[in-house]
């Protein structure tokens, strides 16, 4: 499926590099989700990887639509603000729930206070 918008060369280079970079950073984050050993190590990669990957892909999207419509299009900032604010909140809630469950179950791998 070879399809792409008609952009000048400099904009195409910026968009392509940022899209690829964002996808690769997201892939690194999710590979960390598979490879790391315990739950408390696995909490970290989905916060770091996909947040940075989202920022890169949103920069590419802003560049693409600003050049296409020949005016600044910045509504992608909404997703950037939302993801950056909510990802730490969700992961902190999840880690606290897991800590509570592990302490109640009395398994050995709970981190110390």
């Amino acid at each position, binding site marked *: 499926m070879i399809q*792409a918008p008609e952009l000048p060369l400099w904009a195409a280079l910026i968009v392509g590099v940022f899209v690829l970079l964002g996808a690769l950073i997201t892939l690194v984050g999710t590979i960390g989700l598979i490879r790391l050993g315990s739950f408390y190590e696995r909490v970290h990669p989905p916060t770091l990887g*996909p947040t940075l990957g989202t920022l890169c892909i949103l920069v590419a999207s802003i560049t693409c639509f600003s050049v296409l419509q020949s005016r600044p299009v910045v509504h992608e900032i909404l997703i950037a603000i939302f993801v950056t604010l909510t990802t730490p909140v969700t992961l902190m809630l*999840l880690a606290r729930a897991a800590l509570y*469950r592990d302490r109640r179950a009395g398994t050995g791998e709970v981190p110390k206070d």
Partner: protein
Amino acid sequence: MSMLILALAITMAQIILGLAMGCAAFRVLRGPRAQDRVLGLDALYLAGMLLLLTYGIQTGRTLFFEAALVIALLGFAGTVALAKFLMRGEVIE
């Protein structure tokens, strides 16, 4: 020429994001405990949202942006509800 570069970059990015969704889905299916599955679901919806954004760049339409925004909002609500459920055993007290 520039269109070919852009098309190749976007297609490769979509394949990579598909692999990322596969990794997250592996953790959802395999995760030893419930919190691992919720964590995998969180990474899965973020990667799906990014895939929709790359489709938006590819077709040059802003329709996909709104779908991505809805996925981000509802995914956050879902993960918070699941974390609350794991903590308390019920969502609304």
